[in-house]
């Protein structure tokens, strides 16, 4: 059977699963629910696999397959900005091309694993069926997002995943904080969607279509025809608008505040939605729109800067978190920052590459942390853990792998992808040394906080509450961990850098999607910006450098949290100077000062506070502001608008009295009125 023409089924299976579990789940046994939930996702994974294989079977330039199911919106004619008459038509269309191929595999695959994991993790929660219904709904939306053949379909999935994250974050409905977090997530995302939708409309207004392929062709044609030039205002605006959406979904500055709170949700949710898949939607969308971004260099620069800053900030915050999930959350933000940075420097393939590998190890880490939390009975504070490595070996092993991977240990997936990004940042024309520097620093911090987490959790002496007897998690949870660990190790090998393999197969695979616009043709032999060529050796050296940085990070963490877990404090108090000499790193020195001059207030905590009070507070304050303004407008409503009416009413009432007071009841007053009336009338006709 030909999977390619049935890609529309891929999202459909989870949808069915959702319907079944949602409607009848309440009366179904757990086993049935599991089969439906996991089965449907597995099915779509199989279909995805088949379809992707089918796609690879095609020759390179034909690797873009659109399936239109039926017409969706047809809202009549419209004028495009160019003045032509376009038809606002959107259809339920699905597109499979290398980009969506990668995404669909990652999503359905990891999604399946997490479903399996959840059967174990959620076993004792009530609302079991609800949980899986939501998960399936999420899978449906995410797959639609990925496979949609036009921006509106993308938007459908986009909003769908937003809804699901809302539902899943708020899954523990009795927790007020969960509800708040859920709402915050949705509303903040809505702000992003606002920009996104404007962007979509502008796209239609400019190109008269919303189909990716259509827009792509239009742009290529336009560039070749010398009609569009890089830097045209309209494209900058569109790119900017779209990016607002991306910042919302992918938790970039300034809209990243919702993601840490989102950890209120069950851990598998954090793993699936807030690490592996949904949060990468923004990255995917920007990559999707690469043709537009190529036309808007200034927007590209903005993207890169935002990405870099986000990465830095999040990483620095993560340095000092004690909640295991928050560490991972901030790490996710920072990794997303990497991807966005990559997008910004035009390394779309690299971004997607990192997206893929990150999906593996971050999912792994989250699930691992979930397993830890599960085993210590829902304790998330790392200060109440420690020395767990023997009690839960599988979890430990897998998490160690994940940590190594994310830290960029050579030959693990994270190494390849991250290094690709670093290299691109350095070498690409859009990139520059500053961004590169930031990226490197972040790499170091990443290593630090990840190992810090590892040590605090699994090494040192146990700080676990003695009454808790720690047990390894059930198979349903460990097996996915193992599978993911394998992925975390080997996922990187699909895209070996050119200084190892002769070609980067991954980039090559994505080439048709990310082909650069033919500016040369447009420039017509004009000055072609020549790209600096670097030798492979140099590239390798750079890679080595980044590894070194990561190792430094690891070493700092090791020295402070592994050997003796309170050594840091002692050092800080007693041998501060020696400590500085020992790690003669200037800025880390600063960092330490901040960390230990005052117990409660560390730099990170400060940053975190900053986050909590200002950035987050800004959201709250704006909420407050809206409420206030709502107050004002309500006041206006009650007193001015309505008041005007009531004034008329009162006016009528008040003037009804004098009118009645003429009515004295004395007949001669009446006669007087009459004669006066006559006089006035006569006077009028005579003299007026």
């Amino acid at each position: 059977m030909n999977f390619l023409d049935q890609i529309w089924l891929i999202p459909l299976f989870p949808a069915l699963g959702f319907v079944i579990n949602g409607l009848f789940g309440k009366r179904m046994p757990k086993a049935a629910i599991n089969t439906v939930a996991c089965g449907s996702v597995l099915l779509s994974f199989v279909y995805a696999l088949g379809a992707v294989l089918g796609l690879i079977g095609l020759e390179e330039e034909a690797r873009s397959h659109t399936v239109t199911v039926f017409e969706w919106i047809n809202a009549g004619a419209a004028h495009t900005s160019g003045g032509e008459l376009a038809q606002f038509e959107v259809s339920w269309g699905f597109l499979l091309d290398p980009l969506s191929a990668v995404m669909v595999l990652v999503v359905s695959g990891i999604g399946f694993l997490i479903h399996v994991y959840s059967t174990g993790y959620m076993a004792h929660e009530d609302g079991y069926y609800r949980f899986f219904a939501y998960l399936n709904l999420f899978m449906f939306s995410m797959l639609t997002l990925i496979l949609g053949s036009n921006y509106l379909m993308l938007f459908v999935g986009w909003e769908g995943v937003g809804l699901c994250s809302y539902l899943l974050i708020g899954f523990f409905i009795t927790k007020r904080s969960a509800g708040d977090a859920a709402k915050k997530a949705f509303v903040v995302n809505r702000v992003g969607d606002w920009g996104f939708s404007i962007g979509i409309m502008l796209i239609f207004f400019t190109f008269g279509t919303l189909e990716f392929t259509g827009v792509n062709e239009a742009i290529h044609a336009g560039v070749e025809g010398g009609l569009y030039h890089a830097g045209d205002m309209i494209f900058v605006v569109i790119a900017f608008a779209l990016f607002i959406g991306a910042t919302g979904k992918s938790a970039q500055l300034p809209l990243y505040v919702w993601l840490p709170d989102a950890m209120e949700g069950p851990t598998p949710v954090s793993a699936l939605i807030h690490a592996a898949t949904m949060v990468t939607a923004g990255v995917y969308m920007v990559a999707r729109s690469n043709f537009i971004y190529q036309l808007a260099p200034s927007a590209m620069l903005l993207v890169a800067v935002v990405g870099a800053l986000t990465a830095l900030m999040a990483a620095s915050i993560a340095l000092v978190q004690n909640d295991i999930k928050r560490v991972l959350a901030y790490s996710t933000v920072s990794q997303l920052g990497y991807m966005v940075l990559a997008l910004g420097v035009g390394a779309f393939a690299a971004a997607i590459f990192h997206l893929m590998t990150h999906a593996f190890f971050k999912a792994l880490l989250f699930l691992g942390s979930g397993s830890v939390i599960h085993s210590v009975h829902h304790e998330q504070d790392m200060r109440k853990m420690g020395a767990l490595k023997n009690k839960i070996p599988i979890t430990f092993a897998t998490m160690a792998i994940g940590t190594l991977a994310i830290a960029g240990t050579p030959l693990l997936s994270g190494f390849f992808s991250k290094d690709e990004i670093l290299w691109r940042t350095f070498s690409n024309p859009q990139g520059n040394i500053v961004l590169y520097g930031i990226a490197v620093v972040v790499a170091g911090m990443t290593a630090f906080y990840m190992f810090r987490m590892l040590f605090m959790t699994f090494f040192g002496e146990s700080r676990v509450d003695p009454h808790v007897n720690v047990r390894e998690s059930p198979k349903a949870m460990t097996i996915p961990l193992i599978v993911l660990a394998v992925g975390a190790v080997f996922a990187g090998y699909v895209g070996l850098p050119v200084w190892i393999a002769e070609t980067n197969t991954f980039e090559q695979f994505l080439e048709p999607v990310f082909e650069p616009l033919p500016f040369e043709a447009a420039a017509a032999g004009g000055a072609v910006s020549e790209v600096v060529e670097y030798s492979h050796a140099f590239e390798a050296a750079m890679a080595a450098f980044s590894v070194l940085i990561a190792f430094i990070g690891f070493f700092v963490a090791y020295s402070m949290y592994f050997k003796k877990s309170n050594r840091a404090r002692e050092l800080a108090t007693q041998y501060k100077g020696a400590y500085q000499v020992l790690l003669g790193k200037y800025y880390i020195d600063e960092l330490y000062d901040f960390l230990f001059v005052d117990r409660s207030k560390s730099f990170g905590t400060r940053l975190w506070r900053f986050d909590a009070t200002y950035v987050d507070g800004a959201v709250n304050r704006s909420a407050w502001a809206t409420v206030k303004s709502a107050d004002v407008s309500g006041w206006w409503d009650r007193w001015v608008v309505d008041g005007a009416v009531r004034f008329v009413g009162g006016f009528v009432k008040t003037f009804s009295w004098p009118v009645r007071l003429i009515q004295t009841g004395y007949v001669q007053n009446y006669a007087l009125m009459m004669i006066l009336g006559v006089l006035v009338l006569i006077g009028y006709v005579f003299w007026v």
Partner: protein
Amino acid sequence: MLELIVFYTFATVAVVSAILLITRQNAVHSAIFLAATLLSVAGVFLSLHAEFLAGVQVIVYVGGILVLFVFVIMLVPTDRAVFERRYNRQGKVALAVAAILVAELGYGLYSGRDIEFAGPVAETVIEGNSQWVGTVLYQNYLLPFEIASILLLVAIIGAVVLSKKPPSEEQARQTAGNSQGAGD
């Protein structure tokens, strides 16, 4: 010239007694001055060669209406009225109004005096004012005349109905009782 004198004598009498009419405290005196006014008006009619009208004026008004008034005045004890205020509160206003009224009417009529009252051709003159009036009355104004008879009938019925004693005694007493309350 003579006519002028005649007219003005009658006119002055009429106006003066009219003023006295509305200024006397006692209704009986007013009635007497009303008679004076009506008679002098009749005189004016005479001076206008409307003899028949003058007659009607004397008979109907002085002989009829005025007598009616006097009867009622007798019927209604006015002694109480003697010690009361004569005018209501709006006297001054009324005078102002009167002034304006005079001004406006006077202005109107005086400034319009030169526009001659162009009527249709005069009717065929019939000897003797009475015959003439009679002819016109019974030929042109027959219909109003008939209606007038109904009008008078209605008036009679009305006078009878209204001056009959109220239907039920207790109702009358009760209303009279609360009239004291409402009165002052």
